[in-house]
């Protein structure tokens, strides 16, 4: 259990909680501004996209590793949790990112040519 690891008198759960709260505030804040506050640097759609993905990964890791104890539990639980990831990636690629009518300049490897399906 992570409560045995302490930093500044508080256990790992407390710090994980604070990190999750901070990153949530950060991701909500990211969509409100057109430019970085105090500068003229534009926050583009791609920037927001990257922020959301990075923050999502950090938050997901924090919840799974510390709150769900995967960091301290036997590795078999991590393997169990990661088992569907292969299928999830296949679904995201094969279904989510394979729309031939996609308009957002997806690279060719994720917008396959579906002509064969129409002419078969």
């Amino acid at each position, binding site marked *: 259990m992570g409560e045995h690891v302490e930093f500044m008198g508080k256990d790992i759960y407390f710090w994980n909680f604070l990190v999750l*709260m901070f990153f949530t505030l950060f991701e*909500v804040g990211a969509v409100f501004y057109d430019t970085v506050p105090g500068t003229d640097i534009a926050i583009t759609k791609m920037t927001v996209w990257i922020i*959301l993905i990075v923050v999502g990964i950090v938050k997901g890791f924090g*919840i799974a590793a510390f709150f769900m104890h995967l960091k301290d539990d036997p590795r078999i639980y991590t393997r169990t949790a990661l088992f*569907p990831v292969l299928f*999830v990636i296949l679904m995201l690629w094969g279904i*989510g*990112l394979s729309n031939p009518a996609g308009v957002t300049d*997806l690279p060719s490897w994720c917008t396959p040519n579906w002509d064969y399906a129409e002419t078969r």
Partner: protein
Amino acid sequence: MSGHGAHVENGIWMRAVMMGGILLTIGVLLFATLGVAMADVKHDTWAELEDDYHHEETVLAAQDNISAHDAKELEHLHHEVEQAHLSYLSYRVSGITILLMSIAYASFIGVGGFLNASKSNADDDHGDDHGDEYGGDHHGSASPIIFAFGIMLFLAGFPDFVIACKALLNASVTADLGMLTLSLVGLLTIVIAVSNWWFEDLPFTGAGEQIATSYPFEGEHIRKAGLWVFIMSEIMVFATFFSSYLRMRTEWCTDWAIRDGVEACKDVPEGTVVTASDLLRYDFATLLPGAINTFALIISSYTIVLALKTARNTKWEAPTGFMGKLMPTRKAAIRNYLIATLMLGSLFIVLKLVEWSHLVAEGFDIGTVQGSIFYIATGAHGLHVFIGLLVMLYLVFKADTVGFDEDNAQGIEYFGLYWHFVDLAWVVIFPAFYLY
């Protein structure tokens, strides 16, 4: 669970009935305050503003020339009418949601408690502590099979159950009472199965936890392994929602894509495709319910961790000051952390429905592809939260009666895994559907 351990009098289950009564009373009081009294005040304000708006509109329509100032005033008034309408909806919907939730809570815990209180005392079955390290003598439980059978019956009649609900609101719709009865029998079977599950679990003090004896979970608690396999399947369920959303999302020329200069959208006018995030993310007030919900889930994840930590802490000491009054004993601390989790989860459901009512009022309903995937994905997540809350009611009951300690804290741990998964799913849903 086989139910090794503590001696539990059946009469203790009447406390569950009392708990149901308290929850129902709180629900009715909050409904009367928010959903009736406050909502009526807000409705009057809305009606007055709407009258003012129509009056102003009629006056301006009679004029030959409408000045820019007058047009702006009218637009401002229209905006106020909309805000007043949304404000009314917030109170009305939150009041009704709280009432319905309290009825569901009260009937679930109350009926379950009543059924268990009516059973003959189970001393002979549960009073002996004869489990060994590897589980010892175990009795299989029929509850999961009865539970699954109940779900089957409920789902078989579910389409007509929905029609019957509509028929209650609209006389022109005819309900198939046969299928409605099937659904209700299914619901009753579910409650019976769950209450029997509780009956078996309540005396559990930790002795006789079943341990897996074969690869790959050898030496691990079977229930924990089972829960992780369940979570594995849940990951796939949410992945289907997310991948279908992604497939459609890449096709839509949203306002954001148009403004960002996406080549394929250059001839598409803005407003052609409206997603939920288009209506939610630009204004602080509209994003607020979703943002509060995100924080509520994270805080509730932390409170359930605190409940588990407190249960496992044999050297727990009561805090000083105000917190000490809230949590004078370890038992009270665990119960109160669980109640805090229950309240935060309930807040999530209330705000979710308030937010949905606002979206529907703005014309974003389930009739569009964007609306369909939004309501299905966020609704499925909300359903998971609600089911978690029903389970949490029992945990609160157990924490208040038998209590949790370092030996039987598995109940909190395993429920916590599910609850954290629900939080994890929201970590993906919130940015994808609300922010992007």
